[in-house]
């Protein structure tokens, strides 16, 4: 999403060749139309139809049903919490290995591991956390030995908090991967120049480093938000639908045997697209404001 400055293309063709250059992108656009555009269009149309195939706005009206509205709220909450917490922790972790004075080899190890962990989702991830923090999980049992019983105090891995802990496992590695180049881009001379002019470490962060990183931090957190927002497999496996997340409800409506109302499912999907669209729009606005200084 970063605007890239292109040197004025010396190979630039006269205007009449312009349209032919775009032809080179035809395969990509065709693919996008067939496999992104067409399904989304179908969903848009489907969301305005009821089970009998009649045009209706009922599906959208139904989004206001308490159970569905609640699912949207919970999904947004889980995504927001894991994006912010994962984002902050991932940032600290990346900072630790890049500028925190830790051995270089730890950085390479962390980057490699983050590449794997950021894609670790679904069944294996859900299972791993059940083995760790489930009722008989390793850590649970370990804590019990010390007289601390998380389950006695109301914790369960199958709860919203549990789900958030699980999501964090792929959230913060994604943050590490994406933010690392930006931290690398913080030039040491900026810190030195700030110190030279009498700035304390806090003042440097407040006035120089964070403002410089802000657009990237913001963009990455939106990405993490979307990452959690669309995640279905992990939640499906972990909570078996106990926590009403929107992607699970959609699955139920479209494919479920009991609640079969595809139109409503499509409308919910449109709701998700709309929420992501809005968050990306907010991001773009904020980024533009924060990025005036970038060419």
């Amino acid at each position, binding site marked *: 999403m970063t605007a890239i400055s292109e040197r004025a293309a010396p190979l630039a063709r006269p205007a009449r060749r312009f349209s032919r250059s775009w032809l080179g992108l035809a395969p990509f656009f065709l693919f996008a139309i067939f496999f992104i555009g067409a399904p989304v269009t179908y969903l848009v149309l489907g969301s305005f139809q009821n089970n009998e195939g009649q045009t209706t706005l009922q599906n959208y009206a139904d989004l206001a049903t308490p159970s569905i509205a609640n699912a949207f709220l919970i999904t947004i909450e889980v995504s927001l919490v894991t994006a912010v917490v994962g984002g902050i922790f991932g940032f600290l972790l990346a900072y630790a290995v890049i500028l*925190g004075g830790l051995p270089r080899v730890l950085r390479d190890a962390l980057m490699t591991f983050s590449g794997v962990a950021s*894609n670790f989702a679904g069944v*294996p991830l859900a299972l791993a956390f059940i083995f760790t923090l489930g009722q008989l999980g390793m850590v649970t049992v370990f804590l019990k030995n010390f007289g601390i019983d998380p389950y006695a105090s109301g914790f369960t891995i199958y709860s919203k908090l549990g789900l958030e802990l699980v999501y964090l496992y792929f959230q913060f590695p994604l943050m590490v991967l994406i933010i690392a180049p*930006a931290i690398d881009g913080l030039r040491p001379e900026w810190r030195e120049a700030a110190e030279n002019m009498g700035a304390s470490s806090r003042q440097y962060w407040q006035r120089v480093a964070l403002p410089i990183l802000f657009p990237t931090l913001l963009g990455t957190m939106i990405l993490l938000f979307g990452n959690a927002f669309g995640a279905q497999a992990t939640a499906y496996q972990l909570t078996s639908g106990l926590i009403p997340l929107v992607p699970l409800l959609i699955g139920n409506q479209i494919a479920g045997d009991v609640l079969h109302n595809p139109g409503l499912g499509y409308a919910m999907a449109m709701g998700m697209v709309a929420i992501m669209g809005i968050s990306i729009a907010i991001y773009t606005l904020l980024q533009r404001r924060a990025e005036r200084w970038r060419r």
Partner: protein
Amino acid sequence: MKRRRGSIAWWLVFLLGVLYFFLPLVATLDFSLKAKPPFAAYTSSLQDPKFLGSLLYSLVIAGVTITASLALIVPTAYWVQLRVPRARSLVEFMTLLPFVIPAVVLVFGLIRVYSRPPLPFTHTDIGSSALLVAGYIVLSLPYMYRAVDTGLRSIDIRSLTEAAQSMGAGWLTILWRVILPNLRVALLSGAFLTLAIVLGEFTIANFLARPAFGPYLNLLSQSKAYEPAAVSLISFGLTWLAMIAIAFLGRDTRARIEIGGAH
């Protein structure tokens, strides 16, 4: 270079990260070894024809996805950088769409559009698999495009292209003989990320009723106790090996490729 204050705090952050990374893996290992005799979960999994079958299926799908995705993305990213830079923001936006459209939404759209004439993909096995590949290409778009785009930016494609053109090379020759070989690390990182996505993916494969690794693992976890833990670890190990391979193969090139992610 410089005395760093608070290095201990950074070590603590790092250790916390390591704990978060490894505790679930250790717990899984611990659990998988509880089967009697100790390695029974592993031996029985490896002997299960469905395990090998689904893993092989997913690997083949991954291979096809990677090839098709590269064939689509490399020329596109190249062309955008070289000839239509003004299309960049549009193409970038489109590659980010998979982040906006949840997999469950995508797969239902695909099924609805392609399960009836004139495009009855889902009526045949091969058609369903083709649809699966298409879905995975969409999922891998953000990662693949970014990896390739970063790679292209680290080499001077304009000069390379002009040099090749001046020696009489056509577009295909340029892409195949000049650009691709210079993108090795970028292609590898995109390819392995795609592999990781395909190996772990559940939603799309499940709804398309494909015999892939994700649905197999899901089924296994509902019927067996220890085997799912063993199989999870094996799949995690495979992905990790792929990542180490990227790091290793990328070591001798100066360009550091940003693995995955936007920006």
